[in-house]
């Protein structure tokens, strides 16, 4: 079992191996949360790398009495994902894309291909979660995937506990409305078969 507290102390004392251990221990979790919130691997990787860098550089800001290290990382990750959403909302023109109009698009690298295959095999639940609004998607992922308490969620989302609770309930209701008809269709098909 990794002693996160000891690693944090060692990194605060300047031991870079402790920083690497913290990074490796939380990398996948941070990346997956960002992926769930943003819906694509490229943005998620950028955000996750940024969040981990920020956390390690600002380790002196971490207060163990307020939240676990994993929760603190999720606070930073959610904040970064919101920034990313804000950037996406603003109208922008990509000069690179404009300059490359009409040119042959190079073959994608193996890694994006792999992500594309993964995307095809994702579940209906995933699609339904991605269709939720940002606040509801945050709530459902933090509760159902990360397993945070409502108090932790309120800390991460920067809202009161009752708001975190109502967002989870509302997100669940939306998912139920999306997923239930599909279930019924499946049952009817089974009956016909």
């Amino acid at each position, binding site marked *: 079992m990794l002693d996160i507290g000891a690693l944090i102390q060692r990194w605060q004392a*300047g031991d*870079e191996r402790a*920083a*690497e251990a913290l*990074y*490796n221990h939380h*990398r*996948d979790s941070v*990346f*997956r949360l960002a*992926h*769930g919130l943003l819906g694509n*691997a490229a943005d*998620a*990787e950028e955000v*996750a*790398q*940024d969040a*981990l*860098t*920020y956390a*390690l*550089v*600002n380790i002196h800001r971490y207060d163990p009495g307020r939240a676990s290290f994993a929760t603190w990382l999720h*606070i*930073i990750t959610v*904040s*970064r994902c919101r*920034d990313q959403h*804000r*950037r996406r909302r*603003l109208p*922008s023109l990509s000069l690179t894309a404009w300059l490359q109009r009409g040119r042959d698009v190079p073959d994608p690298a193996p*890694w994006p291909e792999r*992500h594309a295959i*993964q995307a095809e*095999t*994702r*579940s*209906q*639940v*995933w699609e339904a*979660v991605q269709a939720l609004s940002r606040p509801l998607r945050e709530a*459902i*992922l933090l*509760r*159902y*995937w990360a397993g945070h308490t*409502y108090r932790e969620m309120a800390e991460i989302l*920067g809202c009161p506990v009752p708001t975190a*609770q*109502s967002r*989870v*309930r509302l997100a*669940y*209701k939306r*998912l*139920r409305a999306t*997923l*239930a008809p599909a279930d019924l269709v499946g049952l009817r098909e089974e009956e016909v078969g």
Partner: protein
Amino acid sequence: MNSHLSDEQLIGYNHATLTDAEREAMDSHLADCPGCRARLAEHEALQRRIHHSLLADLRTVRPSPDMKFAAIAPGLKRQSGFVGLWRRSGQLVPSAMALAALAGVVIALIGLIEGAGQPPVGITQAHAVPLPMVACFLFAIPVIGNYYESRIVPLRSVASGVLAFILWAGTAVLGLYEIILVREMLFRIRARFWSSSGGHGMDYWRAVALGNWAVLPLAIVWIALVIGGGEYHYKRAGQRSSWKLFGWTIAVEVLILVMALLV
């Protein structure tokens, strides 16, 4: 509780968002009502499905091999020196930075009014540039601080947006002031180096005309930079790229101020 439980109640029950009293009342109803128990079980099944699907979906995604500690390690070392000390010193309070920037705007405005009130009629410098220099210094404090500190958590983006707006307005005011300075510099250059009469008579008025004509293209450039810069900062308010552009803007403005002292 004789009537059946509503979906709202069942969802609250399953999501542990009820008070103890509400939960106890529902427990007693559920003990006697198989219909509500069945509906509760349906909700539980859907909850399990959502939970397991999300776990399974996100278990399959992994970061690329490029996302490794080695990629950020140089950045960690770089930021643990002077910048680390700067951060820990607690000087980067947003309100203090906004105050510095606001003071810079006021000083730049005073400098602009003073500069505009003086005619460009001297072979030597008409006026010094201490106020705009002070304004540049005040703008540089939040820009340098935020360049390294902008990636912080909630609500900072709002403060950053306000700060970016103040800095945008301040650098625009400085830009106006510098149009006057460039006009004077052109006048002095023309009067000193291309004048047979030592900057008197017709040569004097030609030098004045050169300075005045230069104002038109300078004003067009200024408008383009203010609009273009404003759009850039609007899209990237609070991001490092925005602070970086502010840094370059201030550096260029300081350069023009220094040149005005030398020419």
